[in-house]
C-alpha cells in the first residue's frame, strides 16, 4: 500500500499572489500529483483552524497553506494573521497527537512559481514518507467494524 500511496493534499492559497503562482505552475507543466486540491481564499489570513482541521477530518493527508510574503499582503495584516494561525495550528496538531509535519506554511511572491512547485513537491515527499493520515485509517476501520 505504501508504494502506491498517492497522498491527498489540500492547499489553501491566497487569491492575491499565490493563486496566480499556482496557475502559472499548472500552466508550466508542473509535475503535480493528481490528488491535490487547491482552495482559493481571498487572503491567507482567512485560513482558520476550522478549515485545516476540517480538511484533516475529511481525510487529507497533508495541508499546505500558501500565503503572500508578510510585507506584500494586500490586506496589510492578513499574511501575519496566517502566520499566527499556522503557529497555533501546529501546536494544536501536536497536542492532538498528530504529526506536525502534515501541515506546512509557505510564503511566495506572485512570480515565484518555480519555488512554489519545489516546495509543494518537497511537502508531498514528506507526506509520502509519513504514510496515510491516521484519521483516515481510523475512520475506515470504524466504518468496517460497524458494518
Amino acid at each position, binding site marked *: 500500500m505504501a508504494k502506491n500511496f498517492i497522498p491527498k493534499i489540500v492547499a489553501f492559497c491566497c*487569491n492575491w499572489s499565490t493563486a496566480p503562482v499556482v496557475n502559472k505552475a499548472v500552466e508550466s507543466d508542473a509535475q503535480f500529483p493528481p490528488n491535490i486540491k487547491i482552495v482559493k*481564499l481571498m*487572503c491567507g489570513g482567512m485560513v*482558520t483552524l476550522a478549515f485545516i*482541521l476540517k480538511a484533516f477530518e*475529511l481525510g487529507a493527508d497533508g495541508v499546505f497553506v500558501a500565503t503572500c510574503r508578510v510585507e506584500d499582503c494586500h490586506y496589510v*495584516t492578513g499574511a501575519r494573521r496566517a502566520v*499566527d494561525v499556522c503557529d497555533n495550528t501546529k501546536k*494544536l496538531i501536536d497536542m492532538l497527537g498528530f504529526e506536525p509535519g502534515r501541515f506546512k506554511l509557505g510564503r511566495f511572491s506572485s512570480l515565484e512559481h518555480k519555488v512554489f512547485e519545489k516546495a509543494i513537491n518537497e511537502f508531498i515527499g514528506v507526506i509520502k514518507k509519513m504514510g496515510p493520515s491516521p484519521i483516515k485509517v481510523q475512520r475506515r476501520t470504524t466504518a468496517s467494524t460497524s458494518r
Partner: protein
Amino acid sequence: MASKKSKSSKTTGSDSSIQDFLNEKGVTIQFPEICDSFPIQEITMSSCRVACPAGVNIKAYLGAITRGDFQRALEIVKETNPLPGICGRVCTHPCESECRRGEFEDPLAICALKRFIADYELKNGSKNIEPCKRTKKENVAIVGSGPAGLTSANDLVRMGYGVTIFEELPVAGGMLITGIPPYRLPRDIIQAEIDNIVKLGVELKTNTKVDNIDDLFKQGYKAVFLAIGAHEGLKLKVPGEDEYEGIVDCIKFLRKVNRGERDKPGERIIVIGGGNSAIDSARSALRLGCSEVYIVYRRSRKEMPANEDEIKEAEAEGVKINYLAAPVRIIGKDDKVTGMECTKMKLGEPDQSGRRRPIPIPSSEFVVEADTILSAISQKPYISCFKDCGIKITKWDTFEVNEKTLMTSKPGVFAGGDAVTGPSTVIDAIAAGHRAAHAIDRYICGKPLEKEKSPEIVQRELTPDTFSPERATRLKAKKIPIEKREDSFAEVELTLNEDEAVREAKRCLRCGPCVECIHCIKECEKRMFGISTDKGKELLMVHGLPKNIKLTEEVSAMLNVKGKVAAEVRIEPIVSEVSEEMCRGCGQCESVCNYSAIKVEEKEDGLRIAHVDAAICKGCGTCASVCPTGASHLSLFKSKDIEKELEGFFG
C-alpha cells in the same frame, strides 16, 4: 468538533507578533493587553478637519452631539480649541466651506453647533476647573492676551510650565475685546473663556506694557511668545488725509465703542474697506445713531474678505455698500471733512492673493458727502518698541519668523498670530498659538525645533452609501429682529436649542465610516479598543474575536486569550461568477472588466459564454452591475463555501 473549532479559530493571535509587525509599520498599540487586535480602518481626516487651521476634530464632536453627550462634545473641542464660545460666534468657519454635504445642499452649521455646546456649558454650569500641576520649573512669558496668546498659554500650562501673560490694556482678550463689537461677541462669553484659562494656573498681568524683551529674560523667563496682534491702522495715503478733522482709524473707533463709549461719530459716515472690521465699524456706527453709513470697497462683493453673513446682516440693517470704488482724495472745509472723492474701478488680472486686481477707470470720479470717514483698510502690529531688541522685522512691519517653528531671529523669542501674518482670523491665531506652544516646549526641552512634520493627509473618497443620504435642510440660527437692533449692542444671533442642535448634528455625513469619537476606548470596560497615533497616522484597533465563543482552559491558555469577547469584524471575500445557463454572451462584462478577468469564449456548439478567471478577478462587481441577464454575479467565499468545497473533494 470542527464546527466548534471554526469559532475558536478566529482567536488567532499572539499579541507580540502583531505588535512587532505594527511597530514595523510605524504604528504603536496603546493598550498592549489587547491580544488579538487588527485595524478596522486607517483613520483619515475628514475634509472639515483638514480645513480647520486648528485641526478641531469636528466629526467627533458632531457625533457626540448626536448622542446628546454635550459635555463630551465640548471636551473634544477643547482638546484643540480652548475658545469654543468665541469661535462659535466669530469664526470664519473654513470647515463649513469644505463640508461634503455642501456639495449638494447647504453645509452643516458647524459654527453654530460649536457655539451651542459652549453655551450649554455656560448655561448649565461648568465643571470646576482645577489648576494644572506644575511639572516643569521653567517660566514662559506671553506678550498679548488675544486668541494666540491665550491658546499658547492654555497649552503651555497644561504641559506643566509656569505661564505669565502680559497685557497692556486693563482687560484681557486683545482684538476679541477691542475689535469685535458686543452684538457679535458678548463680553461675558470672552470673560468666561479667559477665566477658564486663568483658572488652569496662568498668571494674567493686565496694565503691564512690555517694552524690552531682554528684561523678561532677566526676570527668569526661558522663552517669550510675542502675540501682540495688529492694532495699528494703515494710512489711506490719499491727499487731504492729514489736513482735515474727521478721519478716524476704525480700530480706534471700535476700541472706543467696545469700551462702552456711545458718542455718535457723525451723521453721514463713510467706511473704507471690505473686511470684517469695516463691517463691524459700519454696523456699530448705525447702532450709535448715525443716519447714513456707506461702505466703499474697491473690489466687488465676491472678493470682499468679510463673512458673507455679516455683509448680508449689514445690508439688512441699512448699510449701503459701494462696490468697485476707491478713494482719490479727501475734501474738506474749515479743517473739517465734508466728503470724499472716489473713482470707479474695474477688475483686472488676479494678483498674488488670487483676487482680481482693481484698476481705476479714468475720469470716472464722483464725490460722496460725509462728515466722518472711518478707514478700515488694514492693520499692522505696533512693532516700534521691539525694533531695538534684535528681532528682524519684515517690510510690512511684522515679525520675521521661521514658518515652521515660529521662532524669530532672536533665540527663545517666538511670535505668532496677527503680529506675524497681518490681520487674520481668530482660528488662524489659535492655530498659531498651538504651534508656538509646541515649539516653545521643544525649545525649552532642548529638542530640535523642526522635528515635527505636518502629517500627511489622505482624503478618503465617499463610498456610495455615505453619499446617498437623506436631504435635510440646514437650520438657521434665530436672530433678533432688525427693529430691535437700533441703539442696542445686544447679541444679534441666538443659540440653537438642544433639539435643533441634535437635529443639525445628525446631518453630518461622517465622511469615512469611523466617527473618531474614541467613545469606544472610553466606554469599553474590557479595553478592547485602542487608538494610537504615530507619524501622523492613526489606527483604530478592535478585538477581533467572535461573539459567544467558549474556550476550554487549555486552548485559551494556548491562544493567550482571556475570557469572552464581544466584537467581530469580518471581511467577506468576493469573486465574480457567471452562470452558464443564463449567460447570452453579449460581452458587456468583458468590456467593463478593469482586470481583464472576463473573456467571452465560444463553445463547440456555437454558444458564447463569458468565463471568469477567478485568479485575476478582484471581486469589484462591475461586471455584475452591467450584466443584462443577471448571469454575472458575485459569489462569496464564506466558511460554508470552503467547507463545501472540501467535502466535494473528499467525496
